[in-house]
């Protein structure tokens, strides 16, 4: 494709190629086969965490954004408070509060220790999942608030004028229209979420970053695992961008 053939692009491509060749020849990669299983597990964990927390977080973000626009006031206030609190504190802090806080609270209740949930609650990943989900919901709740509020009133009015029930208006017009408006921002937030996932390594969840740490500790090789993991994050980012821009291009929108 000719977009790759512009002079500055060719230069950049050649430089990237040179870097890869240099890295391949002069650096140490013999550890890769030995750790391939662990690496794949880490990458899988990163992807799984990213997808589930974005999906669950988004499900929470829809009512968080909607209630801020529609009220009733106390509910709007509570939703706004939640989003502000999440966005105003470091994710690392939230993660630790949830992991060490809930994690030390639960064992005090015999009901919980006896329940079928206990085998899961003893592990770290449910806390990572919860914390990343709430974080995404907080940021996205704010985005959805703006998106709901920004849907042109005339389109909603037309829906009402044709006899739609309020729930139908929400389901068929308001929500899809708001998501469409939020898509470009959502894309950015998903990428940010991806880059937040390494934090869960601090509560012993084994994802991509934790795997590189393990490799470093066991082999004393520092740069190569970090380079590899950077590459993986870049590829995941690129995939997310491609998916989102596909949907953004599909439905062009004029906002009046």
């Amino acid at each position, binding site marked *: 494709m000719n977009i790759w053939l512009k002079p500055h692009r060719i230069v950049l491509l050649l430089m990237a190629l040179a870097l890869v060749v240099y890295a391949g020849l002069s650096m140490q990669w013999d550890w890769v086969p030995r750790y391939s299983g662990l690496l794949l597990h880490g990458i899988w964990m990163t992807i799984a965490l990213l997808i589930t927390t974005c999906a669950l977080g988004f499900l929470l973000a829809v009512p968080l954004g909607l209630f801020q626009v529609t009220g009733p006031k106390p509910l709007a206030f509570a939703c706004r408070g939640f989003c502000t609190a999440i966005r105003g504190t470091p994710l690392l802090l939230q993660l630790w509060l949830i992991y060490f806080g809930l994690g030390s609270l639960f064992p005090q209740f015999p009901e919980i220790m006896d329940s079928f949930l206990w085998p899961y609650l003893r592990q770290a990943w449910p806390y990572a999942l919860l914390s990343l989900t709430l974080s995404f919901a907080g940021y996205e709740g704010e985005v959805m608030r703006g998106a709901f509020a920004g849907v042109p009133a005339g389109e909603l009015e*037309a829906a009402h004028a*044709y006899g739609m029930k309020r729930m139908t208006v929400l389901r068929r017009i308001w929500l899809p229209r708001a998501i469409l408006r939020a898509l470009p921002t959502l894309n950015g937030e998903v990428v940010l979420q991806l880059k937040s996932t390494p934090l869960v390594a601090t509560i012993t969840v084994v994802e991509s970053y934790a795997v590189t740490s393990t490799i470093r500790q066991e082999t004393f090789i520092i740069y190569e695992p970090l380079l590899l993991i950077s590459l993986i994050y870049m590829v995941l980012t690129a995939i997310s961008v491609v998916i989102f821009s596909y949907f953004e291009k599909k439905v062009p929108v*004029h906002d009046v």
Partner: protein
Amino acid sequence: MAPANREDSVKAIEVIDLHKSFDSDEVLKGVSLEARQGEVIAIIGGSGSGKSTLLRCINMLETPSSGTIKVNGEAIEMKSDGRGGQKPANRQQVRRIRTRLAMVFQNFNLWQHMNLLDNVIEVPIHVLGRSRAEALEYADTLLKRVGLSEKRAAYPAFLSGGQQQRAAIARALAIQPEVLLFDEPTSALDPELIGEVLSVIGDLAREGRTMILVTHEMKFARDVADTIIFLNEGIIEEEGDPKALFDAPKSENLKRFISSVT
């Protein structure tokens, strides 16, 4: 053929002593009108005279402060809102009546996340409960009729204003409405696009649809309307046959208005 007896035909819309205030600002000050089945009523008047508000009260997009709206003889039930005003008593009734009145807006208000075809079949499927096949078949006929068959898969953002308004008219016709309500359907259009939309509306008028049309296109109003209503500062100042009204306006305000727009 004997002229149709006006008193005999059914009143599709009847507005009785309608008042509407926004806060302390009384915008409609006792408006009464009726549209018989098959009748085309054009509402004219200066900016801010209350034309849109009147039209929007008819399908309850605005809640009248007092007065009665009847559709095919059925009065929309109102109740006190506890703050000295009133509100619809029965949301279900309002929704049912709305599916019989189709509104065409100045800014089209097509749903931007759907292509034209989906815009047209949306209400038949999701409000009227028609089958998809049935809705699609009828939408096809309608899009053909407004000259947009080729554009059925296009999204509104890709279309000219004239095309969007014609699509909005197809969306209105898709519910097989008893009355069409137009609020300045050509005011947002570039001059060269007005003709194509007026020609579609003119055809609808001539085929005997009941229509209430707010417009600034005086020549068009004169051509298609059975009755013209001149609204001035929230009251109907003059009303009647287009020819009589335009050629021999009685009130000073109407004289001034006509000379200002022609």
